[in-house]
């Protein structure tokens, strides 16, 4: 396995736990992956942009929730198997407790004035985080005409037409990979985006 360019000293497991616990606990409204990107790439520099989006592509096509897959990928990148387990457990701890508390108090919660509005506001703002990361990811992937076409096709099929994901992936993924094949050979020295 290639050594990451970043993080010369191993990340302490406690730091890993703390980060994923905090993101899990406070990430109301979604947008966890965008939050991971901020903390792991921009703030802590545990991995490069390139490494992050490489893992994100994998997390997207594999079954399972993207954010838990990303937690496993990031944990593995910084500390191997124990890192994956730590990141996943940390990510789920907060929401696990909160969802049970929410279930017990739900009837009172919804009667709080402004509660629904606040939750909707958080959710839509989190979409802004998702858009921003999507744009960063798009910018890094649209250096070639086929990539641009695939990105647009994916967005139109899934985002606008709301076609089921599986058939869309089954068609677009092989096409896109085949289109990338000719330029794959000379990508040995690609600088990080």
């Amino acid at each position, binding site marked *: *396995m290639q050594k990451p360019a970043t993080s010369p000293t191993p990340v302490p497991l406690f730091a890993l736990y703390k980060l994923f616990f905090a993101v899990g606990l406070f990430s109301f409204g979604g947008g966890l992956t965008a939050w991971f990107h901020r903390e792991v790439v921009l703030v802590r520099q545990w991995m490069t942009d390139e490494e992050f989006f490489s893992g994100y592509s994998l997390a997207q096509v594999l079954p399972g929730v993207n954010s838990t897959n990303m937690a496993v990928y990031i944990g593995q990148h910084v500390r191997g198997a124990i890192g994956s387990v730590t990141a996943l457990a940390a990510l789920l701890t907060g929401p696990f407790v909160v969802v049970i508390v929410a279930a017990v108090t739900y009837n009172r919660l919804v009667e709080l004035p*402004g509660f629904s509005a606040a939750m909707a506001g*958080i959710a839509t*703002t*989190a979409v802004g985080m998702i858009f921003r990361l999507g744009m960063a990811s798009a910018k890094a992937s649209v250096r070639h005409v086929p990539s641009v076409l695939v990105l647009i096709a994916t967005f139109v099929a899934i985002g606008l037409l*709301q076609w089921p*994901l599986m058939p869309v992936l089954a068609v677009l993924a092989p096409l896109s*990979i085949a289109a990338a094949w000719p330029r794959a050979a000379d990508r040995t020295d690609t600088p990080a985006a």
Partner: protein
Amino acid sequence: MSDHPLISLIIVVAPLSLLAIGGASAIYAPLQHQVVDVYQWFSGREYLELFAIARVTPGPGSMLATIIGWRMAGLAGALAATLALYVPSTTLCFFAARIWNRYRGSRWHSAIESGLRPIAAGLMISGGVTILRVEGSNPLAWAMALGACALLIWRPLLHPMILLAGGAVVFVAVHAVTG
């Protein structure tokens, strides 16, 4: 198939773990079918309430299984359902990521990677649009999402909690003004 509710719950949830391609929202419909129609653990209305509770919870967006387990069998149910939903998919991801990283630099790896990248980016933006659709065609929701995005382009390190709290405040204020 066992009659014990915990075993049945795991049998229902664990396969969904590997079916959830493209995120948590992929399991909502099949999960509802199982727990409402097939096993009749909950009525449709009860399920909708559980769904609403899961939606106001932070985290990976799929704490729905946890809450179903909690209502069925308390803490043991919540733990069993959570593990059943997350362990299969993340275990697969762990080994896939190991293979993925081992072949970094090879031609097929970079072809797959650069082939999947625009798809992942397209899916990410689509995911955002889908959430906004759930909020209804509320122009305020779109304005907030695009505004937050613009703010992050300007200040990439702006803390998400400040951003999310700002979103909540604006929505509550608008809600209070417009009723």
